[in-house]
């Protein structure tokens, strides 16, 4: 798309590293996230268990990799849904205005009335421990950003000389989207998607941390932290694993955005 800057290169390296880690586990180790071996609790790292074992003697590597896969899946799915939805509806509202715009803007105002995480918590409460429900809730919160930005951009672009000229020359809707709107949105949609992916990971971990997200024995980064927290003095290195995983994952998404500010 465009030349990558240093921060983006490091971000991609970090992200691919995490994906490789999660993938390698699934391909070569294929550990069980729920298999307990109480006599091997907090066993140190070995070749078979590169990240050691947790308080139930479960494989840290298997759990960490599974949690990473869950987070990545959540990030990718919710960004895909929310960006498509947000861009399409934002354009519809900005272009058509009138009743379409008023209706959509009303919905957005209702969604914005509550802080996003509270909304996700309430949705999470509807069907506890359901990945699909959380996915829906997070997407519902995320698409609002796209909608607002794209709507505002569309309104100003539709009035801009470049679009006006193309309309006077008789070009249709698809041409205006392809040549005028999308080239103008592309960069913002990319940036929003990077931060959106980061926010999805943060949200998933946050509700896991307050026991409202995915349920044990499911491996999830926030949940792992809260489970391991009581054992901080026995094995701080185990607690550090999900901690670092969250930070690296979110950091990588923020870095590939290429700009520091949202």
């Amino acid at each position: 798309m465009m030349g990558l800057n240093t921060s983006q290169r490091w971000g991609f390296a970090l992200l691919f590293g995490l994906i490789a880690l999660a993938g390698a586990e699934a391909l070569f180790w294929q550990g069980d996230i729920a298999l307990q071996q109480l006599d091997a609790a907090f066993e140190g790292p070995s070749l078979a268990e590169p990240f050691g074992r947790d308080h139930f003697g479960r494989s840290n590597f298997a759990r960490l990799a599974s949690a990473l896969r869950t987070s990545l899946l959540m990030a990718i799915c919710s960004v895909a849904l929310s960006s498509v939805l947000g861009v399409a509806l934002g354009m519809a509202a900005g272009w058509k205005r009138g009743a379409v715009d008023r209706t959509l803007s009303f919905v957005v105002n209702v969604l914005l009335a509550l802080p996003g995480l509270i909304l996700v918590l309430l949705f999470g409460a509807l069907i506890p421990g359901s990945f699909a429900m959380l996915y829906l809730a997070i997407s519902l919160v995320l698409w609002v950003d796209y909608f607002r930005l794209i709507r505002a951009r569309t309104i100003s672009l539709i009035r801009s000389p470049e679009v006006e000229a193309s309309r006077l020359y008789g070009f249709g809707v698809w041409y205006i989207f392809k040549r005028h709107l999308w080239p103008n949105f592309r960069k913002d949609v990319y940036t929003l998607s990077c931060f959106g992916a980061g926010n999805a990971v943060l949200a998933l971990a946050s509700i896991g941390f307050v026991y409202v997200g995915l349920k044990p024995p499911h491996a999830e980064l926030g949940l792992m932290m809260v489970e391991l927290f009581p054992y901080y003095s026995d094995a701080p290195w185990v607690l550090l694993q999900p901690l670092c995983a969250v930070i690296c994952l979110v950091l990588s998404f923020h870095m590939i955005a290429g700009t520091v500010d949202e």
Partner: protein
Amino acid sequence: MLIKILGRRLAQAVFVAWAVGTLTFFLMNLLPGDFAYRIAAGRYGYDYVNQAAADAVRAELGLDRSVWLQYLDWFRDLLRFNLGDSLVSGNPVSQELAHQLGHSLQLALFASLLSLLIAVPLGLYAGRQVGSALDRASLFISVLLRAQPVFVIGLVLVLIFALQFQLLPVAGFGGSRYLILPALSLALSMAALSSRMIRNATHQVLGSSYYQFARFKGLSEQQAFTHHAQPNIALPVVAFIGIQAVSLIEGIVMIESLFSWPGIGHALAHAIFGRDVPMIQGAALVMGLLFVLINLLVDLCCYWLDPRQREEGLQ
């Protein structure tokens, strides 16, 4: 203009009530088992409840009527702020909330003050010295802090200050010593964003034509900064506090849960875990209204700071 602000925030408050009410109503109907039985159990205790008591509750609350009528009822109660009794403790929800609200406000206020105390001097300095070592360092720390959920910041602080050095209590509620770590975690996570925002606003104002012109008019650097830069920096910064209200409210839920701080966020997480529907509704409602209130205060501040808004109203 003032009426417009109040009207907009009132509408937001109504949205909050509607969204919270609807979601919790769904939640109630989705709960497994007999809801009347649960309420009866909440009232009389599980040991004394029987089918007759449940039926009495059902008749009393009209739970045998159609879903739509119940939905309307639900809202009538909500608008009267009649939030019902907790299914877990059996106490009236409003009573529990009144107790918790004070604790949450204390935390929120202290955390916000602390975050401004960190972010304002740092942002102003970095904005005046763009590219300096301090500016770059603050950017690095900001990026790092923003990559973690607020409870990770809290966890790290606990590990360092409470467990490693044993300077402060790990969790709980008591004297001011208990307030420091939760407030600091929240403040750091907010300051990570707001310090950069203040830095950018400062940089922009100091590079603006009107600031340069103020100097050319003969004002000294200090005079130009006081009279022409400060108000112009303050306006976007105050508006940004409104945007940060989201982080603040979300942070309160996380941090209160982490530190077992007996506030509303903690209550909300607990209620969701325990599927205590009236409590969920009450806590989410108060959280939402707190959010609206912060936004309203920010709007009023901006209105006061920005003569353009006031003049618009007069025309």
